[in-house]
């Protein structure tokens, strides 16, 4: 899908500093970016370059020390934690490197979770559909520890897409998987992304995965070294 109009996600000069043993530690320094509705952006960089911190700031999980993040027209800095949580509930989905399925819940119950948090009366049917879409209709009542890594990540994908988020954040979604399974999961991720028209922000080490995105942003020591192509990112 081509990017058009006002970007769905924009970061203006955001920085993040945390206290360290030898004084303040700059993790991100003056990052600007914009992602258009329906586009996909890969954030790459060495370990410790600030990728995950940037993802957390973009998703409103953390607040920048300086600068501003605007998500679907809402300035995150103007919202309190409750307001940001409400925004995430409505608009955002997540996929994590270590899956983060709740061990106490079955696959089906894990997928139902975002719908339940959003107060949907009927959560079971969409959850089953979502699991069906990732090819796990036969694993509804399995617990995470009874599933393989690839299956767990597919459950996580079903959970991420079940409430049709406008924006999906993925943190090394194939990082814990072998090459073959990783490819299968990333195929699924991009297929779902296309079919839902979701905007995707992806952190990865994997150049193949990054290459499948519309735009690429490379970080080094908290600074952007390769900015996303303007057209692809829609800025």
């Amino acid at each position, binding site marked *: 899908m081509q990017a058009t109009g006002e970007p769905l996600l924009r970061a203006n000069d955001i920085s993040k500093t945390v206290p360290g043993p030898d004084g303040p530690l700059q993790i991100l320094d003056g990052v600007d970016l914009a992602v258009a509705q329906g586009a996909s952006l890969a954030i790459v960089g060495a370990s410790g370059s600030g990728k*995950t911190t940037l*993802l*957390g700031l973009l*998703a409103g*999980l*953390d607040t920048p020390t300086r600068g501003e993040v605007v998500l679907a027209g809402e300035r995150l800095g103007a919202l309190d*934690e*409750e307001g940001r*949580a*409400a*925004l*995430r*509930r*409505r608009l*955002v989905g*997540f996929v*994590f490197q270590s899956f*983060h399925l*709740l*061990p*106490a*819940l079955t696959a089906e*119950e894990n997928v139902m*979770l*975002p719908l*339940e*948090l*959003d*107060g*949907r*009366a009927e959560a079971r049917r969409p959850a089953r559909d979502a699991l069906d879409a990732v090819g796990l209709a036969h694993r509804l009542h399995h617990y995470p*520890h009874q599933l393989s890594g690839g299956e767990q990540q597919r459950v996580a994908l079903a959970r991420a897409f079940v409430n049709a988020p406008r924006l999906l954040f993925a*943190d090394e979604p194939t990082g814990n998987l072998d090459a073959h399974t990783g490819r299968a999961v990333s195929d699924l991720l991009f297929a779902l992304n296309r079919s839902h028209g979701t905007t995707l922000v992806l952190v990865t080490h994997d150049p193949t995965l990054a290459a499948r995105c519309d735009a690429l942003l490379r970080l080094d020591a908290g600074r952007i070294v390769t900015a996303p192509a303007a057209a692809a990112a829609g800025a």
Partner: protein
Amino acid sequence: MNLLAFAARSLRRELRHGELRTLGAALLLAVAALTAVATLGQRVEQALLASAAELLGGDLGVAARRSLDPSYAAEAQRLALRASASAEFPSVVFAADRSRLAQVLAADAAYPLRGTLRVRGADGSERDAAAPPPGSAYADHALLVALDLRVGDTLQFAGTPLRVAAEIVRQPDGGQLFTLAPRLMVALDEARARGLLGEGSRARHRLMLAGERTALARFQDWVRPRLADGAELVTVAEAQQNLRSAFERGEAFLRLAALLAALLCGIAVALAAQRYARRKIDEVALLRALGAGRHTVLATLGLVLLMLALPACLLGAAAGLGLQQAVLLWAQQLLPAAPPPPDAGPALAAIGVGLAVLIGFALPPLARLRDVPPVRVFQRHLDSAPRGFDLLYLLPPLVAVALIRSQSGSSAVASAIAGSLLGVVGLALLAGLLLLWLLRRGGSALPGALRFGLANLARRRSLSLIQVTTLALSFTALMLLAIVGPGLLDTWRRELPPDTPNHFLINLQPEQATAVATRLGALGARQLNTLPLAVGKLLAINGKAPRAEDFSDRRAAGWINGETRLSWSEALPPANRLVEGHWFGAAAATPEASVDRLWVDMFHLKLGDTLTVGVGEQRIEARITSVREVDWSSFRVNFFLLLDPASARSLPHSVLASFHLPRGHATELAALSRDYPNLSLIDVDAILDRVRDIIDRVAAAATWVLGFSLAAGVLVLLAALSVSADERRFESALLRTLGARRGQLLAAVLGEFLLLGLIAGVIAAGGAIAAGRALGSGVFRIAWTPPPAAFALAVLAAAALVTLAGWLGARRVARSSPLLVLRRE
């Protein structure tokens, strides 16, 4: 979203996996133990009080030296209480050429309201009876022997012939356990008709009441402000010093067991909640990342807990009620009276305490979950922002203190328990820190597996401290219950040894003392103890005549307006302990006095004050040189006021003797009574039997209560060990993956747990001994010596138990595939 539905679903899901099951079980056990202990305690106590009521002849009474106001009886009737009027007075009874001073009880037809009047007829058969009808009387064995009468004969009472219809075997005695003379029982109307109860008589009038508890309480409230001058309430608790002391101590012990059970369950709840909260951190971070608000997370947690707690509490209360009923069914024959049906009060209170324990102990760790940052989904090392000091952590100690305060029923118990537990916490933390420091410094010298095990202790610093502290606390409670409690009870029981004096001789003249002592010795009497007895009046305190209204203690009036009995002795009498000042010197220049602590408190006395007593024509002004603590439950002759022998010897007096004589000497004692007609002989065997019986029953009930508390202690042990179970499982799996042998893993775990158990056990033994000493001297008023062998065994058992529990857990980990364990994490 629908929080309630979401919370219900969360609870259902989590219950499948057992994390909340531990918390629920802890709560259930807490409420079950509290309900069982409190209900059992209440019912046993009521059954014991009912047996005291039987001794008393009623549940409550009003007594006075003059006729009782008719409004008392009217109010009792209005409250639907049963009432019985009686009067007691001394009177000389004649038969042929013999005469005897008897203590007469004149009672109405309703007598006795509680207990039974047991009499023996002419044919020798025993039966329960009411008061005799006019024209007849009952006499006790001593009176029959003294007057050489048999059942069916006639005696002269107040100028009227009365037929002796039966011999009194046993009678409720209205709180007068010690009567000073043989007893005669007549109809109240008889005494009234003979003009024996009018103005100027020496009768003590009594209205005894029985009925429903609330009505009795209402009567008590109503009558208290209306008691005329000299009238007093006769209650079970105030009836008799010996029994009261037995009840107080029995009750204190039951409460102690209940309190410790509650505290143990509180610790278990705290540990379970701590573990639950740690496990929830990832989930909460994820929920927050997925858009759940902070309030939603907290509200869901609260609702989940409430939905778990309410049924757990109700189930616990039901289980507790069932348990105590089972105990009572089993132990029914031990109780002197059928216990009343259980009321809901203790169960409701237990549920309330259970919820307070849940909130107090579980809230602090769970509340911290509100600070879990959502960004933790990316960076797992990010725990909630550290806070310097969280006020919420004051909650558990506050709830514990409130529990101790409300459940102990006495500030002495409260301070003994709170003090020792606080000491244990302090010591455990200190010892823990010292050990961790030593391990860091010298741990590398240890062999491989053991080094790893002990290094674990040092690395999980805060978990290790939590474990040492909670284990020490629960072992303290368990040792208190298993060693100190029974020890105190046993010491208390042994206070009434088999040769406790069981007879009193009153009114013995000084010149008869030697001859009587010789005859008693020939009969085989032991523990013969004689003391002079002078009856006088307390004339002045520090030169000023005392007035009853100056003292808040109502008992003061009895001594100020009535007679004061005093004695003297060269040596400190048995069952007396000097608590202040010094015992009388060889030859005091001025008269000296020694008083019981009760007098010191009641009359606000201190060493150096002077007391003026008048005996006959003589007056003595004595300076207080010592204060004694008298053990009134010792069944020995004791006095509130003792004078120095040199100053008091010339006072007009009689001699009072106490001794132990095995049963079966009735004939010889009757002969002694005949040869010394002035003597009054009191047989206290019957009273002693009842007191011993009561003490045995309290002890039996307390043993059952202990069982529940022990179960709570085991739960704490398991909860404490599971605190570090997750980390341990992961590390063991890791070690296995790296090639560690099963034996090495076990050695590491055993070393770690053995050390943990030993330290906790030693600290707990210290705490339990300190608490035992404080309870012994402060509450039970007995000198308790800690049994070293039992404590040594307890320390070893504590270490063995902790090691065993650790081994069982480690075995499971070592058996399972390391890969599986790793995947589960």
